[in-house]
């Protein structure tokens, strides 16, 4: 091995160590006794393993943690399904039809890609108040159900569906909706699965909007619940860490299972265009 290769491996290993160290420290801290987390000297491995933080987490004395994780799961799943449906449909509409206003609407769509949620935040909150949607799941799911990024991403993928095939299906008498379902959707499965992962992840980790809409502990998602626990610094920090670790486990499983597909396709679509 040349000295250059050695240097490459050393640098990458150091970078990975810095990246993974806080995460590994999180994992080991969840099984340390409360006193040991805040004790000198600071050590990576615990003196003795304890499960008391996990027991306390699921005792529901602080926050209904299991319930909040379930809420996150329900909200993220519904949001993902809705975004997939609206994105696939609008993507097909933009890619496969020519109609008046198409270009205008598409430019509007592109322009809104740079707009942050902050621009609509206050009236959206008022809308939730007047609809009586505070502390409801639809108050989180429906406003997230139309993603400008998703629409754009799927439209790009739908462009590759051959027009000849669509025309042939039309001559055979297939309805437009049937063509969309049996040709459009299957041909962009790759893009849809990437959008599904990205949407689920964004929803699973979201904090700003859920913290505004979801008021009661029973309805809150896990990031809101954990953020509320931070006030109990030191005394309950182990419990907070145990919860923090558990909510990352599904993410890691998904990424290890689908790493090739996800990482390879993740950015291709958006950068190519």
């Amino acid at each position: 091995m040349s000295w250059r290769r050695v240097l490459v491996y050393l640098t990458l290993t150091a970078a990975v160590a810095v990246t993974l160290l806080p995460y590994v420290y999180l994992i080991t801290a969840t099984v340390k006794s409360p006193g040991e987390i805040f004790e000198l000297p600071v050590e990576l491995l615990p003196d003795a393993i304890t499960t008391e933080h996990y027991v306390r987490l699921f005792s529901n004395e602080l926050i209904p943690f299991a319930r909040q994780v379930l809420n996150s799961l329900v909200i993220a799943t519904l949001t993902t399904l809705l975004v997939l449906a609206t994105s696939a449909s609008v993507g097909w509409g933009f890619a496969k039809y020519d109609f008046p206003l198409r270009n205008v609407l598409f430019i509007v769509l592109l322009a809104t890609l740079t707009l942050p949620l902050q621009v609509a935040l206050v009236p959206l909150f008022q809308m939730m108040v007047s609809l009586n949607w505070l502390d409801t799941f639809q108050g989180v799911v429906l406003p997230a159900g139309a993603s400008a990024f998703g629409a754009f991403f799927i439209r790009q993928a739908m462009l590759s569906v051959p027009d000849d095939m669509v025309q042939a299906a039309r001559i055979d008498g297939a309805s437009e909706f049937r063509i969309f379902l049996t040709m459009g959707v299957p041909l962009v499965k790759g893009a849809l699965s990437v959008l599904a992962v990205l949407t689920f992840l964004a929803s699973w980790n979201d904090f700003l909007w859920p913290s505004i809409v979801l008021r009661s502990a029973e309805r809150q998602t896990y990031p809101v619940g954990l953020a509320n626990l931070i006030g109990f610094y030191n005394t309950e920090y182990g419990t907070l860490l145990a919860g923090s670790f558990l909510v990352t486990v599904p993410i890691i499983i998904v990424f290890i299972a689908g790493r090739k597909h996800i990482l390879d396709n993740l950015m291709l679509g958006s950068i190519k265009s």
Partner: protein
Amino acid sequence: MARTLSTKDVATDAVTPGTPTRRRRRSYVRPRWTPYFFIAPFFILFGIFFGLPTVRSLQMSFYTERGVDTSAEFTGLDNYATLVRDPTFYKALVNTSYYALGSILIIVPLALSLALLLRTRGLLLREFFRLSFFLPNAISGIVVAIVFRLVFDQEYGLLNNWLLAPLGLPKVAWLADPAFIMPSIILLGIWQFTGLNAIYFMVGLQNQDPGIHEAATVDGAGPWQRFRYITLPLLKPTTVFVVTFAIIGSYQLFAQPVALVGEGGGPNRAGLTLTMYLYETAFTNLDLGYGAAIGYAITVIIVVLSVLQMWAQGFFRKESA
């Protein structure tokens, strides 16, 4: 099932009542509003929950409205006049810009270097490296901040005990000393987002034609020259993309500082970001009109900075590059 839902049956009637459907399809003429059927679900949701509030927000920013049930009073540009003289808004703007500038200037070169290293031919464990670098980005900002409170803790933190102490440096009050709060948030940002941007750069590098590099090598260009005159210019679309998204993300920063130093921004409000100030104004103090004005200020900043940096990188000059 699909048949009953299809547009054909409904739509053809609407366009040409009485015309036999078969004939119509033969000539490949689709019902005129079929496309609208496909784009409607998206635009209805998007219009109700984003378009409408966006317009309403602009209107609200010209009113003074305190509390949810109180009536609004038209005050013209008062909110914006208050905004430009509001020391707290100014503080939040400086803090957020500090974060944006600091993190982008460090993350972009760091991510590019990582991407170049990851492109090394015949690299073992490439998949493991890539996955590890991506991981922090996939974790909730709240969770990252909870972990980093342990990294930055003055007495028992990893940074002070494992890095500064061995170097003989004194312990730093990362989250208590106003001068160190923004640098702490920047460090967290670097940890969380460098890997993601390295993957963006890897994709950009992958799309480069190796032939050009080989030709340059044959012509006697050294590694630095090839990097400076071929790799970098060809990478421009990726760089524009990365910086634009970094600007958009930076000016929306909220969860991490809230969990790290608290909703108020910590001592001397040194960790207060623009979105935290918006949240406090609108949802804690219920000063809704002023909150809407802050929301618009954030948006204008994001749009102007994104366009400015695209222009600075020559994005509008040619479609090629």
